[in-house]
């Protein structure tokens, strides 16, 4: 009997070595551990054994069963692993095939740049104030200290709107965001005319010029203007604000340079250059080797403008600065044709 058990164990273990897959393993299990397997046969014959042999035989049979079962689970695990390995080696993709497109929405590059600017300004305390696109000569020019026929008007070629009987106050498409200076000042001053509150706003908006549409000039373009009015605002504050803004917008090491300039609605006025963020100021094609990029115009709000806005220039001072998102995007992304922005060709838009 013991030999028979030994034989059964030996056969079971030998045949187990040949089992290669799950189906064969299941067959093997039925054959060697199932109800009608030789080993189970031994157990069923157990009762017929002489009493004194039973413990010895029983122990041997149990031992054999344990060994077979252990080998079975070991084999089962090995087969699982083999199967997994096979799956992992055989089931592979050409990872270089293109992925399936997922329609991605995008903001227009101009909006993206505008948002960057406004987000920085917002953190610096400038709230967005929006105003209309068709303006009167009064708001676009006269209240901003451009008298009729003033030479400074030649700096801006204006698109006028057909309208009759308006005399010296024709309708026009705003040439800059600065009418918003008057509109916002008047809005704030109306809140408390005797004691107008301080102002710190950003004026984004589309502006227009009577310029032919070419790679370098556009009939419409966005502008953002910052305006701060209060009882203690200085030119030094303007310089500090723009230096801070430039570092946020163009990089922590961005240096700025102020050049005296002229705008009728600010005095003193300045142009602000930022050290070229493409070459770090060493000179490159973007900055035309100069190392500087002309980015902003700015100045202290002209007393006439403060007065027109309802702020007494003897009590209040203020500054304003303006910049163009498209121009900044062109410098940043090295876009050499401004027409791309309103051309809205997908081949351009998709790149943002």
């Amino acid at each position, binding site marked *: 009997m013991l030999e028979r058990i030994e034989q059964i164990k030996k056969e079971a273990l030998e045949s187990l070595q040949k089992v290669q897959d799950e189906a064969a393993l299941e067959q093997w299990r039925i054959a060697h551990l199932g109800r009608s397997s030789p080993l189970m046969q031994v157990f069923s014959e157990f009762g017929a054994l002489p009493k004194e042999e039973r413990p010895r035989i029983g122990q041997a049979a149990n031992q054999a069963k344990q060994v077979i079962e252990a080998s079975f689970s070991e084999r089962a695990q090995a087969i699982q692993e083999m199967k997994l390995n096979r799956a992992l080696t055989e089931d592979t993709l050409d990872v270089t095939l293109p992925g399936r497109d997922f329609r991605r929405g995008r903001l227009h590059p101009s909006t993206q740049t505008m948002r960057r600017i406004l987000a920085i300004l917002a953190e610096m305390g400038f709230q967005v104030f929006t105003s209309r696109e068709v303006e009167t000569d009064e708001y676009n020019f006269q209240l901003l200290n451009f008298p009729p026929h003033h030479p400074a008007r030649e700096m801006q070629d204006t698109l006028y*709107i057909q309208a009759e009987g308006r005399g010296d106050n024709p309708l026009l498409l705003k040439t800059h965001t600065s009418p918003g200076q008057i509109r916002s000042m008047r809005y704030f001053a109306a809140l408390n005319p005797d004691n107008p509150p301080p102002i710190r706003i950003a004026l984004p908006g589309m502006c227009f010029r009577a310029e032919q549409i070419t790679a370098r000039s556009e009939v419409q373009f966005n502008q953002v203007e910052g305006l*701060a009015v209060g009882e203690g605002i200085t030119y030094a504050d303007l310089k*500090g604000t723009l230096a801070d803004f430039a570092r946020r917008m163009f990089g922590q090491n961005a240096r700025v340079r*102020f*050049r005296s300039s*002229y705008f009728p609605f600010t005095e003193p006025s300045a142009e602000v250059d930022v050290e070229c963020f493409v070459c770090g100021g060493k000179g490159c094609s973007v900055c035309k080797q100069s190392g500087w990029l002309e980015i902003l115009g700015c100045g202290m709000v002209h007393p006439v403008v403060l007065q027109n806005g309802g702020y007494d*220039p003897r009590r209040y001072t203020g500054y304003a600065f303006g910049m163009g998102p498209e121009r900044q995007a062109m410098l940043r992304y090295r876009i050499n044709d401004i027409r791309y922005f309103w051309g809205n060709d997908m081949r351009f838009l998709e790149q943002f």
Partner: protein
Amino acid sequence: MKVPLSWLRDFVDIHLPVEDLARKLTAAGLEVDSIRYVGLPVPETKAGERHEFKSDGIAWDREKIVVAEIYEVMPHPNADRLVLCDLFDGREKHIVLTGAPNLYPYKGQGKLPRPIKVAYAKEGATLYDGHADGQTLMTLKRTKIRGVESYSMACSEKELGISDDHEGIIFLDDDAIPGTPLADYMGDVVFEISILPNMARCANIFGIAREVAALTGQPLKKPQIREQAGGSPIRDLVKIRIENPELNPRFVLGLIRNVEIKPSPYWVQRRLRLAGMRPINNVVDATNYTMLEIGEPLHAFDYDVLVRRAGGQPVTIITRTARPGEKLTTLDGVERTLSENNVLVCDSAGALSIAGVMGGQESEITEATRNILLEGAAWNFINIRRTAREHNLPSEASYRFSRGVHPALADVGVRRCLEWMAAWAGGVAAPDLVDAYPLPPVDPTVEVTPRDVRRLLGIEMSAEQIADLLRRVEFECQVDGDTVTVKTPPYRMDIGEGVVGLADVLEEVARLYGIENIPETRMADPLPPQLGNPAYEREEHLRDILVNLGLQEVITYRPTSQEREARLGIGGEAVRIANPIAPERSILRRSLLASVLDITEKNARLRESLAFFEIGPVFVSRGNDLPDEPRKLAIVLTGKRYSQAWDSKSSALLDFYDLKGIVAGMLDALALRGVSYEPLRESPIYHPGKCAQVIYDGKILGVFGELHPTIHARYEFGNAPVLGAEFDLDLLLSVEPVYTIRPVPEFPPVLEDIAVVVDDAVPAAQVEALIRQTGGKMVTSVRLFDVFRGEQIGRGKKSLAYSLTYQADKTLTDDEVATVRNKIVQRLQRELGAVLRT
């Protein structure tokens, strides 16, 4: 304005390197656009290195390009058009071959009584090629021309880079000493400077020199006018009558007799050329030179012509506006019809010149002119600007007059110019001037204190320091305690009165102090009240929603055309541009959808599917008043629903329901609950059966649908249907969103599908509404997942299959669910004749 360095040095010593000077000027508002080197060393610029100023030009080698003199001009043995010059370069003699036509007159005359001084270039010198177009560098090499050896040359202005003149060689003035390096004798640098509108005072060499002196701390050397007069005084000969002092505040005349018209000295010609003007003759050059030098435009009349026109009477000069239809033939030979806005300088016989803009032909200076009446005047700058524009006559004179020339310069200009004429044309000025000055300007006086400087500029400065800065540009300053009383100098017209004058003067303080020296500070001023801008914030939020739904934002032109919008059937009154840049940009858009459709058309063949949106204003005319600018949202979809991947070949096209999905997604993201969609059959834009209006609280938020086939056919879209939507943004964003969030259920839901067969005409929305009503709170979701039509269910019928979710605050039993379901089915049966499909 072109500013030669040598000319600046007449009035101020300059020790700074050229680029440093350019940097100082630029910082002070005199932006140097470019620097041209004409003989002086050009700074080295290596590739990939910063060079702040655009510069070009040529340096003259001090060894190889020198002053020389020609003693004799001899004929060439083999060529008529060439001559041989016997020349001395300060060290040795040379025979130099040249074809310069201005030497022909001296050919074969033997030894010249007075040698001709020339710019002489030796072998190996680098010059511009005189025969090439534009500026091409070349190196002078030894060669043989028609049998005569040549290794050097006498140069033209073009070869030296002074101008593009190659008509002949330069004849230098007699003070040139042979052997002197030409660079030392007349090497120069020319700054091209942009003059800002408030810096009109700097549109002359002396004006720039004044700034240089102020910025570098050097003394300013004012022009010293030497007057030598003789003969009868002018006041006995000429009278002036000004009809309108507002237009002509001052008019000054001087007279010079017995001039000889000939070319100016070479140094004058060279300076005029470097400054961008063409030398004409000594008298005309004197007027131009003086204008460039001190900023007063002058006009020279042939005095004898005026005497003749006066017919024996004394000459009377009258300034007045033109009479209707009055004509004048100007210097350029054009007969011009004048308008009543134009101011004329006339005599008793009629018009002589257009004031401040251009002279008349009859009284102009000719070779024969002997006696000259010289005008220096002040004009109304706006009037000159208009006149110059009206006749399209931009000139150096009108450029200056239209920006404002201080009347105090009128007599200074005349005196200076008479001095130059006497020097270059050999005449003698008549004693005195006639000076009509009916309207002298008031040069404002402004008080400035250190407090003002601190308040506006944020810098500390004593009253004395303020005065010192301002005196550098000739303000008269009196310091009394903390107050500086500042009198505007009589050369500038940009300083106002009162608070404006204060700002004007503080600007000068900042400029002269150097804005680069002003510190950078952070605002100490209190923050304003925070008001927010909900409309703007919601609009930006909507942009994000639409991008999240997979749409591409576009931004289109506001200016469009009638024709473009007519394609979409948009007509009626428009806001029109009076001076459009082109016919296709002549009105302001009335339809945002039309603009986005244009962009869709442009891209139709580029991509297999397009999904665009734009947010922005349209313009609604209100006649002669400001138009309304309502803001809109437009969406356009077209093309394939799925992009073509390499393993799937679905050719399904985007349709109404894709757009509706986006619209619903957008409204959902805006938390707008309870929106209804109603068919809209009479839209001219959309297919009558595929168009819906979006209604909320009785208001139409927008309309969307598939483009009407006739409209579709007007565009080059291809075959796919085009879906469009236009929303009233102000309305859409004015709805207060509902942000009540339901708790996440704790108990498991029961999911069940039911399909009902109804008449085809029954709208799906009605079925869904009944299910929701009947299901009440227990039915938390109703999703239509299939619509089926076919023989099995009968003609004119459709099957709608819904997936229902039952949910309660406990675990629902089968019976509870069945009860609700039966109620729903019975209600559908009763009210819509629906049959449960099994």
